[in-house]
């Protein structure tokens, strides 16, 4: 921020060899015992990438099974295990930690001019906890899997399923503490470690969105933890907490589950929104339109997001009056999302827009998140949700937001900060091509599912009536294209670590403190604590135009 000059094109001259966080120390131990937030971020990057491809593999098997109406590829129970493990892995072990634990970990200290997070050891511990939880879940996967659906509804999960429910639940329980500690670390860091002059309204929006995410981590995660604990106890020791035979109420479980899991969907999308705010400003070379509105929209989403969980339960037997309240509040939470979308669009107005890969992903995010979000409004509408609940309409809705939105944001962010993380430039042409493949593959996969859903095809169906086949074939075809699209970055990013061009400190001409450090940054980020004097996204000193 203190140096807002536009950097020249990536310089052709290799930067002189320099001690940075990657080469400061060597050896496995120096990584496994590191307390450097940047190295921990990379540990996470490796782990979640593994889980993404594992979850993706399950998705491909799901899609292959659904190529034909008959359940002919795998058996019913195997299919049920496939979508359960797909959902569990993608949600708890990939998407929830994805942007926060990788990009957030890497960038938040640098963006606020700090040497590290407030609790570096706790940060490392978070990763270990995540790995322990992941091990439990992997153990369950290897030893036969689990078939409850990612939602673990009782009494199926407590009394009926004969698969590894407890091991999986314990895995998620443990991983939950990793989320909690990450959130706690971010909150404390953002409160206490900002550089001098870096007031709240000078924070990058990425930091704001992570602050909001952390609030959810801290306030929602404990509830899923205790809920899964109750499920485990009921299953193991035959305690009766949700057992209808004792007068217990399975719907209470659903309340507890969604009290976490609805806010959790905002854990998945808020960080991506933060990334998009950075991308849109950088590649439009503009300050964000309506900074405060975008910043407070994050907090608004986090807070209101806690008041809508009952919209997953409209047909569950929940009281119709509660349904009414939850429906109304669900519409309210859509407003801050709308504010963000409009402000990003307005930011591009009269900008200088460059079509680098990260910006392509940002375009993808805006478009697909809008579609996903708008279809969320269908679901929040009581009369319509009755028909589409638990059909492929829901599946399409959330993949539009989570795959079309959140993963696009994640990939955009990875490309954008890749020069900073690795010190190398990725191959631009390949990257643009991959972004295009992902976009096309994605829409081919999930758009037909909206139609399927309204037609009435229920989700979690191993076999389906033949009239749904054409649309399912399209979806499966799309998924294979999508898979290729995801493999490409995997390949060229790894390739670039060795063969890519060396990256300058600030390849995009961005503002933001992280670009003031060399690429890759030294272990302590800043030799001297920086002092911030500028407003955020200060791309055009002096000139300000008033709109509207």
């Amino acid at each position, binding site marked *: 921020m203190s140096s807002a000059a536009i950097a020249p094109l990536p310089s052709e001259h290799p930067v002189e060899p320099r001690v940075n966080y990657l080469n400061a120390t060597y050896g496995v131990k120096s990584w496994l015992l590191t307390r450097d937030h940047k190295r921990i971020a990379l540990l996470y990057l490796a782990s979640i990438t593994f889980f993404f491809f594992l979850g993706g593999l399950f998705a491909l098997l799901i899609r292959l099974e659904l190529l034909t109406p008959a359940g002919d590829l795998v058996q019913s129970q195997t299919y049920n295990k496939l979508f359960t493990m797909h959902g569990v892995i993608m949600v708890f072990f990939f998407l929830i930690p994805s942007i926060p634990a990788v990009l957030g970990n890497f960038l938040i200290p640098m963006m606020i001019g700090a040497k590290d997070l407030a609790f570096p050891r706790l940060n490392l511990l978070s990763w270990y906890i995540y790995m322990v939880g992941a091990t439990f879940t992997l153990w369950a996967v290897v030893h036969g899997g689990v078939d409850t659906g990612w939602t673990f509804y009782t009494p199926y999960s407590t009394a009926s399923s004969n698969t590894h429910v407890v091991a999986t639940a314990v895995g998620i329980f443990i991983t939950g503490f990793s989320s909690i500690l990450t959130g706690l670390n971010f909150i404390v860091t953002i*409160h206490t470690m900002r550089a001098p002059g870096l007031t709240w309204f000078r924070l990058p929006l990425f930091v704001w969105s992570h602050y909001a995410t952390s609030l959810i981590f801290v*306030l929602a995660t404990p*509830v899923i933890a205790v809920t899964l604990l109750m499920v485990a106890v009921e299953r193991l020791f035959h305690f009766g907490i949700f057992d209808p035979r004792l007068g217990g109420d399975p*719907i*209470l479980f659903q*309340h507890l589950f969604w*009290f976490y899991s609805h806010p959790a969907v905002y854990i998945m999308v808020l960080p991506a929104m933060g990334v998009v705010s950075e991308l849109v400003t950088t590649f439009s070379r503009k300050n964000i339109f309506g900074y405060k509105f975008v910043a407070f929209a994050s907090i608004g989403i986090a807070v209101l997001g*806690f*008041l809508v*969980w*009952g919209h997953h339960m409209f047909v569950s037997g*929940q*009281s*119709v*009056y*509660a349904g009414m*309240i*939850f429906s109304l509040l669900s519409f309210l939470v859509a407003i801050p999302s709308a504010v963000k979308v409009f402000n990003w669009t307005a930011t591009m107005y009269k900008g200088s827009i460059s079509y680098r890969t990260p910006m392509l992903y940002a375009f993808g995010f805006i478009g697909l998140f809008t579609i996903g979000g708008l279809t969320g409004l269908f679901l929040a509408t009581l009369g319509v949700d009755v028909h589409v609940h638990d059909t492929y309409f829901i599946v399409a809705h959330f993949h539009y937001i989570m795959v079309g939105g959140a993963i696009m944001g994640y990939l955009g962010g990875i490309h954008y900060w890749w020069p900073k993380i690795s010190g190398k430039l990725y191959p631009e042409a390949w990257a643009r091509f991959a972004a295009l493949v992902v976009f096309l593959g994605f829409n081919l996969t999930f758009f037909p599912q909206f139609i399927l859903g309204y037609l009435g095809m229920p989700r979690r169906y191993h076999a389906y009536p033949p009239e749904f086949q054409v649309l399912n074939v399209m979806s499966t075809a799309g998924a294979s294209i999508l898979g290729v699209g995801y493999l490409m970055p995997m390949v060229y990013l790894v390739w670039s670590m060795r063969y890519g061009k060396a990256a300058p400190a600030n390849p995009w001409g961005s503002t933001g403190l992280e670009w003031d450090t060399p690429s890759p940054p030294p272990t302590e980020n800043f030799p001297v604590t920086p002092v911030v004097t500028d407003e955020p996204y200060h791309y055009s000193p002096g000139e300000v135009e008033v709109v509207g």
Partner: protein
Amino acid sequence: MAQHVVPPKVYFAVFTALIVLTATTTAISFLNLGPWNTVVALGIAFVKATLVALFFMHVKYSPRLTQIVVAGGLFWLAILIAFTLSDFMTRGWLPISR
């Protein structure tokens, strides 16, 4: 944000109050006050918890941020309970025709 040292006198006073309140709540539980039994028991528990938080945990002398954090935690607990009860308490409301 200087650390505030609370004199032990305050601790002993709070401690005495806590013990007295414990004795009171146990004693009252043997009386039949109808629905008020619950109200009194929870009311006393709330007072006790507040005393512990304010004095033993120094919330009274803590920075504003800490106080907001505490209030926020309780508020979220209230959200969890209130919105769930909004379901359980209104279940029978819609008249079922016959």
